[in-house]
C-alpha cells in the first residue's frame, strides 16, 4: 500500500516537473522577457545589465531550478498586462471558479447518475430512449451555445436572471462568496447549468455503459439464479460495482469542468480564473498563462492521486495482488 502510494507520488512529481519545464520554456523562449519589462529607450547596455542581474545568462538548468523554487512558493512574477503579482491575481479569481465548478459538479452528479442507472436498467423503455436522445443532443450542443441560448431565453426575453458577472459577493477573509446573497445565487444559476449539462450527458452515457457491462457479469447472473430480489441485485450488487470505475471518471470530470469553466466564464463574463486565462492568451500574457498551467496541472495531479488511492481503498482485489 505504502509502496503503491509512493510510486504514484513519484509519478505525480515527474508530471509536475514536465509541466513546469513547459511553463518555464514559455517564460524563457516565447518573446524576450527583457522586452516586456523595459521601454523602447533602454540602451543595449542597460538591457545586458538587467539580463545579467535577473540571471537570464545562467545555464538552462540553473534557471529552471530557480523557476521551480519560485513556483513552489507561488511566485510567478508580474502579469505583463495588469502589472500585478500573478499569484494574488489568481487568488482573487479562484473563489469564483471554485464555487461555479462545485455547484455544477454536484448538479451533474445528482442528476446524471440516477439517469444513467435508470437507462441501464430499463434499456428499452420509452423514457430511457428519450434520455439517450437528449444526451446525444447534449453532446452535440457546444457549451458556449447552451450559455447563449440560456441568456437569450432567461436574460433577454424573460428578463428573470442576470446575464453576466457574479452579483453581490460577501468577503470572508480573502475568500469571496456569492452563496450568501440573493443576487449572487441568481447569477450562479445560468452559468452552473451551462457548465453542468455537458458533464451530465457524459456521466449518463458512461454510467449506462458501465452498468450494462456489470449486469452481464457472471456474479449478477448467479445472484439472479439464486432468486435474489431485483432491487438487491440492481442496487446492492450491480450499482456498487459500477461505482468503482465511475470514480476515475468523476476524477477526470472535475478536470474537464475546470477546462469548460473557461468557456462558461467567458460567455457569462464570470470573474474567475478561466476568464483571466483567456484574456492572458489573447494578450500573450506569459506569466499568467504559465501560472494557470501550473495550477491546473497541480489540481489534476492531486485529483488523480486521490482517485488512485481511493481505488485502492474501495477495491479489495487491488490490495490482494500486491
Amino acid at each position, binding site marked *: 500500500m505504502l509502496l503503491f502510494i509512493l510510486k504514484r507520488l513519484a509519478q505525480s512529481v515527474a508530471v509536475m516537473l514536465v509541466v513546469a519545464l513547459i511553463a518555464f520554456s514559455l517564460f524563457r523562449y516565447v518573446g524576450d522577457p527583457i522586452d516586456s519589462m523595459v521601454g523602447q529607450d533602454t540602451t543595449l547596455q542597460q538591457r545586458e545589465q538587467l539580463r545579467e542581474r535577473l540571471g537570464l545568462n545562467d545555464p538552462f538548468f540553473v534557471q529552471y531550478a530557480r523557476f521551480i523554487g519560485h513556483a513552489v512558493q507561488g511566485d510567478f512574477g508580474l502579469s505583463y498586462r495588469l502589472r500585478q503579482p500573478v499569484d494574488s491575481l489568481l487568488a482573487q479569481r479562484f473563489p469564483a471558479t471554485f464555487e461555479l465548478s462545485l455547484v455544477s459538479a454536484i448538479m451533474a452528479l445528482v442528476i446524471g447518475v440516477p439517469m444513467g442507472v435508470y437507462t441501464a436498467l430499463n434499456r428499452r423503455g420509452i423514457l430511457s430512449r428519450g434520455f439517450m436522445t437528449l444526451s446525444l443532443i447534449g453532446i452535440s450542443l457546444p457549451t*458556449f*451555445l447552451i450559455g447563449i441560448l440560456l441568456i437569450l431565453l432567461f436574460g433577454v426575453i424573460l428578463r428573470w436572471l442576470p446575464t453576466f458577472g457574479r452579483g453581490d459577493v460577501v468577503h470572508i477573509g480573502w475568500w469571496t462568496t456569492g452563496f450568501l446573497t440573493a443576487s449572487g445565487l441568481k447569477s450562479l444559476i445560468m452559468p452552473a447549468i451551462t457548465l453542468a449539462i455537458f458533464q451530465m450527458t457524459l456521466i449518463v452515457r458512461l454510467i449506462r455503459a458501465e452498468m450494462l457491462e456489470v449486469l452481464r457479469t457472471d456474479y449478477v447472473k448467479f445472484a439472479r439464479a439464486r432468486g435474489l430480489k431485483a432491487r438487491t441485485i440492481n442496487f446492492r450488487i450491480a450499482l456498487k460495482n459500477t461505482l468503482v470505475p465511475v470514480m476515475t471518471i468523476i476524477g477526470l470530470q472535475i478536470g474537464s469542468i475546470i477546462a469548460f469553466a473557461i468557456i462558461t466564464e467567458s460567455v457569462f463574463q464570470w470573474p474567475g480564473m478561466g476568464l483571466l*486565462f483567456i484574456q492572458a*492568451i*489573447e494578450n500573450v500574457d*506569459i506569466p499568467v498563462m504559465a501560472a494557470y498551467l501550473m495550477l491546473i496541472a497541480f489540481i489534476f495531479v492531486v485529483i488523480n492521486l486521490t482517485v488512485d488511492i481511493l481505488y485502492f481503498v474501495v477495491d479489495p482485489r487491488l490490495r490482494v495482488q500486491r
Partner: protein
Amino acid sequence: MSEVEAAAEAETIGWRSRLADSDLFYAFTHSPVAIGSAVVTAVILLAALFAPFVAPHDPFDLASIDLMNSLLPPAWMDGGSWAFPLGTDDQGRDVFSTILYGARISLLVGFLSVILAMVIGVVVGLVSGYAGGLVDSILMRVADVQLSFPAILIALLIDGVLRGIVPRDDYDQIAVYVLVLAIGSSFWVQYARTVRSSVMIERTKEYVQAGQVIGLPTTTILFRHIMPNVLGPVLVIATIQLALAIITEATLSFLGVGVPPTSPSLGTLIRIGNDYLFSGEWWITIFPGVALVVLVLAINLLGDWLRDALNPKLR
C-alpha cells in the same frame, strides 16, 4: 476495349458489388436514422463546398455589401426581405451566405485536424503495440498524461504559445493551420490506444510471423499488413472526433483565439453575433448556432450508428 480498361471495369464492378453485399451497407439501408443523418451531413458538406455557387451573396466581396442593409431581420419578419433569407449582420452581410462560407472553414479545420490526429495516433499506436517494452511504456505514459488533460485546454495552450511566437500580422494568415495543429495534436491519444491494443493481438498472428520469417522490413509488416487489419475502429473514432473537432474549433473561435473575423468560421460568426444578442438582433448568432448544432448532431448520429453497426456485440 483494351484489356487494361476491362480489368479496371471488372475491378469497379467488384468493388460495387462487394459494397452492396456488405453487412454495413445492408445495415445502412435499414436504418432511417443513419440515412437521415448521412443526407443532412452530405447536404451541408456540398453546400459548404460549393458555397460560391450556392450562396445568394458573396459576404466577403466588399463591393456587394451595403451598410444600408445592415441588421435586417429574417425574411418572414417585419422589415425582412427575401434577398436576405436569414437576415443580415451589422455590416450588411447576408447571414445565410456567411453561414455557408463559415461552415466551409469549420469543416476544413475539422477534417484536417482529424486527419492529423489520425496520422499521429495510428503511427504511435502501431509502433507502440508492435515494439512493446520501453518504447511502449514511454509512449503510453505520455498518452496517459495527455488524456488526463482536456483536449480544449491543450488546444488553447498550443494556440496561445504560437500566438506568442508568431508576429501578430502573420498570425491571422496561419490561424487556420494553428487551429488544425492545436486540435489535431490534442486528439491523437484515442487512436493510439485503440490501434495499440489491436496491434498487440495482430502481432501474434501467423501472417505477421510469416512476414517476419521471410524477412520483410518491419515498416512493410506494420503499414502494409497490420495496419489494414486495425483500421475498422479508427473509422468510428474518426467520425465521432470529427464532430468533436468541429465543436472545439467553434469553441476556440468563439473564445476569440480561433480564426480571425476576416474569414469567419461558424464559431466566429456566433461570437460576432453574441454582441447583438442584447439589442434584440438574435438571428446573427442563433442561425449560425443552429447550423453548427445540426451539422454536429448529424455527424454524431452517424458515428453512433457506425459504432453499433461495426460492433455486433452491442446489438
